[in-house]
């Protein structure tokens, strides 16, 4: 008898909870209720990589700020195009966020990508990591001018990640603007580039500061220049290419975007949630550990303008290099 009562009670409880659940589903459509379901952040890279880790660090506090769950969906393939196609298939309600990097922008600039530059709106910038030109500490090239001069005699063996990546394009643009020559040696990742540079397999490389910081401090590598408009706080004595009259500023920037057409109120809430999360020590410590400035963080307006300008530059660069029509 007791068992029967128990099972009736259980059934009743089940019915009630499922009804409550349905009630929630019906309210989804109202934008004012954003967020009404967990937020999905779509990445294009493998677990444990820079983009993945940054997104995870960002979400730790964002969940608390938005009082909502959030999770990461990795969609690898075709330099971010797979991730873009996936986001495109989702409703424009702010619940799907794309973690964007120069990889996506360069992919778009090459043409025939799932999204175009006008299909999305920037929400917040999460990291800015300028490309730094490294050489071996024992190398005869003491300044960026030495390197440029040497390249005129014989192309500099210059390491970077994959063909068509920001490393590759920035190297080519640097060579063009400085009127020198490089022979680009592509590698699978930053670690391999760095070991090849210390081991004297290549002559120079464009790396993020963090990728070569240990070897720089240990006196095995030297930095010649930073590809940025302003000097890096962590490298106050290293000139920028701009100071040297070379117009080549490139960085691994990361940030989040949503599809255009998403209600402004949702974008505002997301922006607020993300920015607050990035002010928290959890995220700030992470930035510091990666050798990055707290000025990495920027809001919707600044980030949206920046994406558009990176895209424009990337497009011009690819066309001028003959890599896109």
């Amino acid at each position, binding site marked *: 008898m007791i068992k029967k009562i128990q099972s009736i009670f259980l059934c009743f409880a089940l019915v009630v909870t499922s009804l409550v659940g349905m009630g929630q589903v019906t309210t989804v459509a109202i934008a004012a209720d954003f967020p009404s379901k967990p937020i999905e952040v779509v990445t294009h890279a493998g677990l444990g990589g820079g983009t993945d880790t940054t997104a995870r660090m960002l979400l730790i506090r964002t969940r608390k700020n938005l009082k909502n769950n959030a999770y990461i969906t990795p969609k690898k393939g075709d330099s971010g195009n797979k991730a873009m196609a996936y986001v495109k298939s989702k409703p424009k309600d702010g619940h799907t966020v794309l973690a964007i990097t120069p990889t996506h922008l360069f992919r778009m600039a090459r043409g025939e990508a799932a999204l175009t530059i006008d299909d999305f709106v920037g929400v917040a910038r999460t990291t800015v990591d300028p490309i730094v030109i490294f050489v071996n500490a024992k190398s005869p090239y003491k300044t960026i001018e030495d390197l440029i001069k040497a390249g005129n005699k014989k192309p500099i063996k210059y390491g970077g990640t994959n063909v068509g990546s920001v490393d590759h394009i920035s190297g080519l643009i640097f060579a063009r603007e400085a009127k020198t020559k490089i022979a680009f*040696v592509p590698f699978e990742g930053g670690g391999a580039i760095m070991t090849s540079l210390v081991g004297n397999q290549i002559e120079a490389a464009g790396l993020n500061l963090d990728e070569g910081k240990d070897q720089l401090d240990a006196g095995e590598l030297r930095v010649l220049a930073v590809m940025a408009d302003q000097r890096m706080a962590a490298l106050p004595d290293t000139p920028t290419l701009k100071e040297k009259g070379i117009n080549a500023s490139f960085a691994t920037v990361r940030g989040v975007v949503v599809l255009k057409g998403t209600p402004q109120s949702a974008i505002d809430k997301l922006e607020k949630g993300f920015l607050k999360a990035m002010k928290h020590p959890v995220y700030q410590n992470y930035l510091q550990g990666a050798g990055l400035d707290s000025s990495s963080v920027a809001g919707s307006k600044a980030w949206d303008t920046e994406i558009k300008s990176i895209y424009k530059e990337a497009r011009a660069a690819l066309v001028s290099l003959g890599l896109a029509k």
Partner: protein
Amino acid sequence: MDIFSNISLILDAKTLALILGSTITGVLIGALPGLSSGMAIALLLPFTIYLEPSQAIAAMAALYCGGTFGGSITAILINAPGAPPAAATAFDGFPMAQKGQAGKALGMAAVSSVVGGVISLMVLITFAPTLARIAYKFGPPEYFALAIFGLSMLASISSKSPVKNLIGGLIGLFVATIGVHLTTGISRFTFGVDELFEGISFVPVLIGLFAMSEILVQASKSELFLERIKFSAIKLPSINEFKSCGKSILRSSGIGTFIGILPAEGGTVSAMIGYNEARRWSKNKENFGKGEIEGVAAPESANNAATGGAMIPTLALGIPGSATTAVILGGFQIHGLRAGPYLFEQQPDLLYTIFYGMLLANFIFLIFGLMGAKIFSRISLIPRGYLWPSVFVFCLVGSYGLSQSMVDVYIMLISGVMGFFLRRYGFSPAPIIMGIVLGELVENSLAQSIIIFDQNIFMFFTRPICLLFFGLTFLSLFYRPIKNLIMKGKKDE
């Protein structure tokens, strides 16, 4: 260096519990095909911010150790290597399980894993800063020479006919060419499928060639003879069996530690080379591939030695020695820590915590593995009709889970069907796997070397390490004919 005075660093309840939990989680995740220890660490990374930095890193390192061992369990029991480094363990482990010696194979895997793991950790704590510099000596030309040495074993890696092994190896090399070419950025054999741009993922192929093709083999057998249940299956190996494998275990531990140190290669290549060297020097060559216990001991000690080896450049230089250690380095960042030369000079406490964490992890999975062997080995007693359909579900979930992509599931199914027919016609999966593993390395390192050498291919012969590996390759190919010639010459005298 006074190693043992620092053991108190991990002797508090929370740290011990964390290491215990991480190791066992690692073993279980490692055992599931499609879930890797690297993935588990990446997912747990954000949660470790609530821990002390040293505890967090020790827990991650322990998970890494456990995960590498875990892969052997499913490789032996159901021919589905839980992770790529365990692929070579399936070559002999699964035939042993089929012969009713699952317990022996599992027991041997546990013991040889620990020996390999502990040896590499001892090397780590004593010589890391010196040995780590090997990583700098290895540029693209050296990797090319190493890969060529590895490929020279294709013909002999299984006891099947050498010609068929070579054909299998070529199939593997072909599969490795799919995707975007590193130095030109041109996509090959992708047919517009976005998922193929970054190449065929290795895990679905592995699950397909081993487990899925095994399901088809099992399904094609008639159930006329009910196999007698063999209770001997839960027996552990005898002391003599351990002794007979001693040399192989030591050799593989050395190979694994060395290859582990190299940033571009790790457990999978170590296990393959360890396996092949064990076969080359063994008295029971013809038994390899048919359930030879040395064939389990060699790859298992090699791939676990590679975990300690991979930690050497990771900790001493801040260069990840493997995919999983790259994620562990991410963990350093989150905690605002830095690996590299500093760690050894300025933060010895952190270093020792990691060292003891990994050492403890090895002993935890030894106990877990030996006790578990008796339980896990019963899986091999499950009637075929129940076991293999459940393995099929495992294969599907395992290949999908990797990157939540149906394309990976199709790759798994296609490799399964191909594997089935290849096996019917007398091909072994071993050279195919070897071809896939080394294919990308050999191609990329050659392309990079040619740019570095200004298109002059003869520059390879100016590099000492290249010459060493080319010499070894020559010996491994021509050792027999030369020996025969010398023997013949002696007879004529």
